[in-house]
Structures are given as C-alpha cells and as structure tokens.
C-alpha cells in the first residue's frame, strides 16, 4: 500500500490513540477507542483524507486495519 503512512495517520488521529498503541493487528471493537461511535469518525476521516465516499456495506465490513486496506482498494486507494 503506497498510502500506508497516511492510512495509519488517519487511524491514529481519528481514533485518538497513542501512536505507540497502534498496531496493524487492530480490530474493530478490540480497543475502547475503536467503538461504533469512533468508527464513524474514522470512516469520515478516511473519506476526507482520501476524498472518497464509502457505501454503507463497506462501513460494516471495515472490521480491522487489514480489512480496511482491501476495502480501500475498491475505491482505488492503494
């Protein structure tokens, strides 16, 4: 992923997590910071950062950092 650094930055910023706490193994609902409410903040962060509009099924399926990379491919973010 070319945009990985930006992707990570948006994660850390949207979920307001300590960069040290960040891991590529992060999963939705695994840490208190990534709950259903911050999930929507993260989604809008990605939409703004990458200038895309995601569909609602992708919002649901965006269940981990890794899964997110796959989903973003659909929106031509590599």
């Amino acid at each position, binding site marked *: 992923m070319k945009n990985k650094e930006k992707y990570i930055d948006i994660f850390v910023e949207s979920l307001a997590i300590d960069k040290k706490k960040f891991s590529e193994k992060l999963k939705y*609902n695994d840490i*208190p910071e990534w709950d259903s*409410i911050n999930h*929507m903040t993260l989604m809008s962060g990605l939409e703004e950062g990458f200038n895309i509009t*995601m569909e609602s099924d992708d919002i*649901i399926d965006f269940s981990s950092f890794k899964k997110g990379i796959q989903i973003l491919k659909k929106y031509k973010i590599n």
Partner: protein
Amino acid sequence: MQFLNKIINQNAFSLDPRYKAKFFQESINFLTSHHFKRSNLYKDYLKGLNYVTKKNNNLSDIPFLPVRLFKDFDFISIKKKEIFKTLLSSGTSTNKVSKIFIDKTNAFNQMKVLQKIFYNVIGNSRLPMLVLDKQNQNLDRKKFNASAAAISGFSIFANKIEYILNQKNEIDYKKLNTFLSENKDNQFLIFGFTYNVYNYLLKKLDPSKLITKNLSNAFLIHGGGWKKMEQKKINRSQLNSELEKKFVIKNIRNYYGLVEQIGSIFFECKCGYFIASNFSDIIIRDENLEISKKGEKGLVQLLSLLPTSYPGHSILTEDIGEIVHDSKCKCYGHGKRFLIHGRLQNAELRGCSNI
C-alpha cells in the same frame, strides 16, 4: 452461529416462506437449547413451563419470554466479562428499564443486519442525515438507551449528521438552513422519533424561518412508538398527509422494533406494511395466547435469529398487530407483511425512547 452465517450475506428478504418456516424451526429450537444451557434463569423459566427442548418442536410451541420480564430480571447467556454493551429501554412510571446484555458478536450482527435490511429501503449510498434531536454530549459508551442506540445505529447510513436542536432543546434555524442549502439538490435523510416528528416538524418548526418549505428530497425515517401520538389524536395517515402539506415530504417510512430483541427491525414499505426480514419473524396470538386465526388482530410475538448473548430470540410483546396477506405488495421481497395497532390496553404504561 452457523445458521446465521448461511444467510447473512444474502439479500435480507430472500427466503421463500416455506424454506423460512423450516429454517426458523431449526434455528429457534437451536437457540432455545443454547440459552437453556447457558442461562439458569431461562432454564428455570422453561422448566416452570414443563417445556422440553428438542430439535424439532413446532415453531409456535417454542416458549416466548414476555417482554416485561426483561425489566425485572437480568437474563444473560454469556459470562459477565463478555458483556460488551448493555442496551436499556426507556424508563416508565415504575422507573424500571429492560436491560439487554450483548457481546461483540451480537453487536456486530445487529449492525450488519440493520444494513442488510435498510439497503432495501434506501440503497447502499450514504446520505446526509438530519436528526430530530439534540446531540448527546455525555454518551455512556457501555450503556446505550433506546434513543442513543437508534441514532448510533442509523449513523452508518449517514455521511454527515446534523442535529436540529441545540443543547437547550431549541430549534437551531441557522444550522438547519445551512444543512438545507447544502443539500437542496440531493436526497437526504431525516431521522427521529415519531413524537419528535410530530412535535418539531409539524408543530414547532416555523416554515417562514426556513430558506425553503419544499423538503421533497427528504427521506423521513421515524420510529419509537405511537403512544404519545394517540394522546394527540393523530394517526399515521394524518401525520403523513400533514407532513406532505407542510413540507412536501412524500417519502416517509415508519419503523417498528424493540430494544429487547436485536435483529428485529421492520421498515414500512410503500404499501404501508412492516415486513419481516430473513432474520426475524412474527406470530400473532389471541387472548388465550393461542395462534390467532388468519387476518385477526392479536398480541405480537417476535422471533429473531440474532440474540445469542441473552435469551431474547422469542419474545411476547405488548403490542397488538395483524398479519396482512396482500399478494399485490411486492416491496422488498419475501417476508410476512403486518400492521401494528398500538399497545395492549391494560398493559403497563411503557415509555418508549424516553419520550
């Protein structure tokens, strides 16, 4: 749960009635045994009914929990440390609330199923959403009441959320007009509780302070009960025609659901019926709690495939409903069509969504 995985990626209204009947018989029997093994309280309840769990009991013979029991007892089928969120119903005069304990899997499935169902109402695109409420600034993330749970659930369909009220519960015309001017050429959602639709859209909102009185590109979704509306002597068709008269809002969809049963959410179709999705089903019972005759009104029993963390897969509500057989209605796809005719007369007065 294996049976849920079988259908979770299909369209939410894909199961033909015969297949669904068999599928529900298997799944609801399975869930009954599942909870029997995991919840002592539920086990005692079934024993009290002399009920023996089997794989192939008739769907209509499987016991239901009366919804008010969730107010007096903590029914739970998981370990305490697995509780991810507690959903609370709104308070009533008795100040008792239902407590529903869900784990991560149940929380995820609920969102997933809501998306699968709502997809049939609006499609896959997310839209700007106007909420007929104020923003909840002190949200307890572990305990959701009905209203917070609904707003948070529906937020997945929004790409931007604006609240119509400020923190003093006054209509914020400035914010509202900004929202309306940004979205004058595109479809947007309005989401709120039925009483707030009446109270704010119909009564309090002053059209002369708005940049437009034509909200025909709005898609209004509302739910939460008609109890307070009955006091105002306004029914569904009056509400809809008043909204059309005042704001040209034509796309109005009421929804029906209970905090006590995750997975059971029903949106009105264009014909005005609620339709049960693949994930839930409805049975109507008479005053002796026997299955009602076709077309008769009675008490609504709801079944859902989702609840695994608490025994809420078969509950008896206090609502009066009627299953409708209308072969002309092709909305969404398969699924029983039904109407809700309000609350059982002598049922405990039950506040809905704190309104």
